[in-house]
């Protein structure tokens, strides 16, 4: 019987949650790397046994861990992330030039077809690639070297490259998103990049429709239709039907269009999920009710999903990398909270149940669908 493996990164370690296809009974393994912040854990689509984890701490910096047996055992691999050439500067919070400094890996994106190839999105915003299973890392410097780079500014969480999407249909096309610079696209495997932010409106920047400077929180796409992109921005939920050439707002009837994660149903490319958060100042759900919102129409028209989720006194957040979907016949949806819960819905969001309730604050959730 097929099953799932959920990979949860938390403030104090990683956890591996496994279940069969029913997704009712769960086995919990962890904490792995106890005491360290685990920003992201993700498996290779080409080899589900190959996992990569970003492990970091304020004391000892960045470590990358690799598992070749589905998370049963791990070994550290390379952790040297050196910006190529003279790093230059970006804007600091006070508007002064600030040298690019590596802080941590926010996101690891394994290649779709080679388990030894993996991309890393880092803070300060940069994109790295490893071709040897994480042993060594080389920057793809053209993104950071974009002419707008010196004007990029950090968001409140740091200037992070947090989203990497690999186009499964068009070889070499990839998308990246940076807080707070915006979304970028490459059509040549990262050799050249251009901003794709036309249509975004951000009140927090001097020119609301500037080419760069937008605080994009997350991008998502369905693999069968990579020209259609969905975006949760600082405020506003957005959609592009042309690979990011232009965007339109699809916030519709959401109670708040502020939030962090966004994801797409595994089998229905126009079914999307967000978790509205009250505001940029109040990082918790409106009215203390934890509600996932689902649109079955590709946006604009949203319904709250509440069954099994706390509907009073709930003041957790769901961070940008903390939502995932599996590809079982009945699509599973997962998210983790800053309160340490990981929730699962085995019926596309209609009903929810906690897998675990008391983990450290959850930073990321990924899921692998196993044969």
């Amino acid at each position: 019987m097929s099953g799932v493996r959920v990979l949860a990164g938390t403030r104090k370690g990683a956890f591996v949650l496994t279940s069969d296809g029913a997704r009712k009974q769960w086995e919990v393994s962890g904490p792995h790397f106890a005491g360290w912040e685990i920003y992201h854990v993700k498996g290779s689509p080409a080899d589900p046994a190959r996992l990569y984890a970003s492990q970091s701490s304020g004391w000892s910096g960045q470590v990358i861990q690799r598992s070749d047996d589905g998370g049963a055992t791990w070994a550290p691999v390379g952790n040297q992330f050196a910006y190529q050439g003279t790093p230059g500067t970006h804007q600091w919070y006070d508007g002064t030039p600030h040298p690019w400094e590596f802080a941590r890996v926010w996101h690891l994106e394994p290649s779709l077809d080679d388990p030894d190839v993996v991309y890393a999105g880092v803070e300060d915003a940069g994109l790295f690639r490893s071709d040897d299973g994480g042993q060594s890392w080389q920057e793809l410097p053209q993104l950071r070297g974009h002419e707008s780079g010196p004007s990029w500014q950090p968001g409140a969480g740091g200037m992070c490259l947090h989203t990497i999407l690999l186009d499964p249909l068009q070889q070499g096309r990839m998308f990246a998103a940076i807080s707070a610079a915006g979304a970028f696209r490459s059509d040549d495997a990262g050799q050249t990049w251009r901003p794709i932010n036309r249509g975004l409106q951000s009140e927090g920047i001097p020119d609301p429709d500037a080419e760069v400077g937008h605080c994009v929180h997350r991008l998502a796409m369905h693999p069968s239709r990579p020209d259609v992109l969905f975006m949760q921005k600082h405020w506003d939920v957005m959609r592009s039907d042309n690979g990011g050439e232009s965007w339109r707002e699809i916030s519709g009837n959401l109670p708040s269009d502020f939030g962090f994660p966004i994801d797409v149903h595994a089998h229905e490319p126009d079914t999307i999920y967000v978790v509205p958060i009250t505001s940029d100042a109040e990082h918790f759900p409106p009215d203390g009710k934890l509600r996932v919102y689902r649109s079955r129409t590709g946006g604009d028209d949203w319904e709250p999903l509440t069954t099994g989720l706390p509907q009073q006194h709930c003041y957790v957040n769901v961070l940008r990398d903390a939502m995932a979907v599996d590809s079982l016949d009945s699509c599973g949806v997962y998210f983790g909270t800053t309160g340490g819960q990981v929730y699962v819905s085995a019926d596309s969001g209609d009903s929810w149940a906690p897998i675990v309730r008391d983990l450290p604050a959850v930073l990321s959730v990924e899921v692998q669908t196993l044969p």
Partner: protein
Amino acid sequence: MIRVVLPAHLRALARVNGEVHIDITGPVTQRSVLDALEARYPMLRGTIRAHGGGPRRAFIRFFACEQDLSHDPPDNPLPEAVAAGTEPYLIVGAMAGG
């Protein structure tokens, strides 16, 4: 024989228990001790000081013989008691939240 004590999170990373014992040929300095430590435990590279023998990470401290050596030049000789193995060289995570 030099005795080195790692903080708990780095002992876990290096998969060691208790003190690490290393041998140094030549001058016993903070640089030579850290070079030897990283040679034996490559996974510690970048976690105590920058790659390539660069500066100490901000929240790591070096103590020995009840002295804070964190700000000493890395090529200064370590105390004789450390070089003789009667006192350990302590690599410490600074008390800084978390």
